[in-house]
């Protein structure tokens, strides 16, 4: 053997392959089906919005770390690309470039870097940007271009199914009448409805979810709990009065529930660390979403619900812990040893 120095470090000496860049890559791959479908639905504008949003986000992070914080750039971890894509997924596909720019700056600048960058932000950066835009540019942010498959003769933009629902209820129409104006459930499932760029197709988003579960990037706890909560809660209201409340399937397949459950609420940084905590967190999002949708003035409430629950994450992490080995909860008797077999 030639004279060479051996590396010496404490154990463990092996490491999983699933590191931050790999995870980010995995999430981006998981977003591709929804992205592809948005291009199919809205054409080149959707590509344009996404490319702009991603470039602005990456550039914003690079410039802020490099020139404002004077640190080495952190864009190679890929998280800014995801923020950019998620921001694009959450806006209409005809958004003007300057609004995208503002959204990106708010997402990265205020939502992420002002807290110390990746890992330190309490709120989901893409949602911070999205809600900022929704409040600042309500008209542009709610004029939804119509997807190809539902293209009617004259309308270039139309309300989302949830918007139609809210308007219909306000106008005092019966649920049957409102539902007749809607696309079919299979249209909802495959994504031929109007709405934000990436939120339309439950099918494409579920594909992404499946991929992330398979790669063990995320666990089932948040998406399943959140979807189940929305399904059960809207189901209860629907059973009470099917004339006033839309059926649970409609609620799960429309708006941002699926996108929120798969990509927004599962963001590592802004969700709880323990499985038990994740369930509480997702339950909260589900309940708030339904309350806003059914009783609030906005037709859609996923973004707000996630941001509100983001604020509870530190509290959830403090009070809700995983079971510990050899430590029993106070007040509970210690588990009795299994009885000895007679032999």
């Amino acid at each position, binding site marked *: 053997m030639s004279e060479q120095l*051996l590396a010496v470090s404490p154990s463990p000496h092996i490491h999983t392959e699933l590191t931050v860049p790999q995870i980010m890559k995995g999430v981006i791959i998981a977003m591709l089906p929804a992205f592809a479908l948005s291009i199919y639905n809205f054409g080149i504008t959707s590509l344009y919005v996404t490319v702009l949003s991603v470039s602005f986000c990456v550039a914003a992070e690079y410039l802020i770390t490099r020139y404002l914080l004077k640190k080495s750039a952190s864009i190679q971890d890929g998280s800014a690309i995801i923020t950019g894509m998620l921001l694009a997924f959450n806006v209409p596909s005809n958004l003007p470039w300057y609004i995208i720019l503002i959204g990106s700056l708010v997402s990265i600048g205020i939502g992420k870097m002002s807290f110390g960058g*990746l890992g330190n932000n309490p709120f989901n950066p893409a949602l911070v940007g999205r809600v900022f835009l929704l409040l600042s540019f309500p008209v542009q942010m709610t004029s939804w271009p119509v997807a190809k498959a539902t293209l009617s003769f004259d309308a270039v933009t139309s309300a989302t199914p949830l918007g139609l629902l809210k308007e219909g209820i306000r106008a005092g129409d019966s649920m049957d009448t409102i539902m007749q104006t809607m696309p079919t459930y299979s249209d909802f499932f495959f994504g031929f409805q109007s709405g934000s760029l990436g939120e339309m197709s439950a099918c494409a988003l579920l594909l992404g979810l499946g991929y992330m579960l398979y790669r063990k990037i995320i666990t089932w706890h948040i998406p399943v709990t959140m979807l189940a909560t929305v399904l059960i809660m809207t189901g209860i209201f629907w059973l009470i009065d099917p004339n006033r409340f839309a059926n649970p399937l409609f609620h799960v397949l429309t708006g941002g529930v699926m996108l929120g459950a798969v990509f927004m609420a599962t963001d590592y940084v802004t969700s709880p660390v323990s499985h038990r905590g994740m369930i509480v967190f997702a339950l909260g999002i589900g309940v708030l979403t339904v309350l806003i949708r059914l009783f609030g003035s906005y037709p859609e409430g996923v973004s707000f619900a996630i941001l509100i629950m983001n604020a509870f994450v530190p509290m959830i992490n403090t009070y809700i812990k995983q079971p510990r080995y050899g*430590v029993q909860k106070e007040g509970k008797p210690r588990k009795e040893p299994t009885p000895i077999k007679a032999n």
Partner: protein
Amino acid sequence: MSTQNKLKTFNIGGVHPDDHKISARIPITTLPLPKTVIIPVAQHIGTPATIVVQRGDSVKVGQVLAKHQGFVSSNIHSSVSGRVGIIEEVMDSSGFKHTAISIKVKGDDWEETIDRSDNLVEDISLEGKEIVTRIMEAGVVGMGGAAFPSHVKLSVPEGKHVDYLLINGVECEPYLTSDHRIMLEKPREIIVGIKILMKALGVKNAIIGIEDNKRDAVENFSDLLQHETGIEVQPLEVQYPQGGEKQLIQALLNREVPSGGLPSDVGVIVHNVGTTFAIYEAVQKNKPLVERVVTVTGKSVKQPGNFLVRIGTPVIDVLIAAGGVPEDTGKIVSGGPMMGKAIADLDVPVAKGTSGILLIPKAEALRAEIYNCLHCGKCIEACPMGLEPYHLLLMTKKGNYDKAKHEHIMDCIECGSCSFVCPSNRPILDYIRLGKTEIRKPKKA
């Protein structure tokens, strides 16, 4: 995942590193005698032994070189015959310097009292207390890696009732196969060893726990145990750290050792299979612990294998038997990849706790870039003790040791699962170790 019937496993945490059991099918071969051996007097947890030989003395194989000091200590025997050379401090696999006795090998002359034949001796003539004394005299320590003196484990404190003996044949560390080979090649001896332990402890039940990637060993034992009462073999799910003492107790008996407690608090004593074999040899053959099986393995090792090595043999001699050190070696680990210790040079001697020597290629030897903590919770998911490793790291980093202690940092078994899964490559276990060390330090007034 699940086959016909679900295998037993522990309930909390765990990870699944690739097992890389390259040397599993290679039978144990005896390593040629080295020219010199270096025998440290502190190869075990507890007080180092006191040296009773001098430079120039002639010694035989099995002769006591150093006597145990107090109860938690162990005798050290000569593993070769020859002349005692220099006695000085050398670096061992812990990375610290400890006193060691070097012996220049001459011939292979054993103490006459030792039965070196391969005959299986099944009748256990010694009684409980005598067994414990014999094991203590033979210098047997835990051979799974921790090297805790075995006789101490057999002396159950007053007032505690032990009803189960668990034999740890899990070998959950990737790469290592020494326990696997012993189980395949010496099962009858191990069964006698188990009976000796049961007699010494006065227990009627023993379970051998083996990970399911060693099906042959499981089947072998089931066949041999058909007509035995009180001893059974249990296959376990392949999941790290299945072989952790506390995890094994949870998997096999669904009992939890209370925080800060010992297995005997829940009526259990755990011994490793390699140790059980050494106990058989000590009690039935009067043979002290002078040799052990060492796996030499690694992705680029030319002839990986399992070698019967005299204690004190320099690592380099063992490596030569495995085809030398590959050009791309970047790190050499004494033990397994999850809990083993990286050694700094090749003169480090094989000790009683050295279960394997792992050669890691350069490409995998260095740690990767560290990112911010994402709070992904993967370390919590992985921790077999249900701790919050990322949080313990933060507390230790800030010097907040009291809070870390309150968050059960002392329960950490240092299995390395948290550092293994961390996507940000954060040195979680390093900080936890630092925290534990700081807490153990006597408080300054």
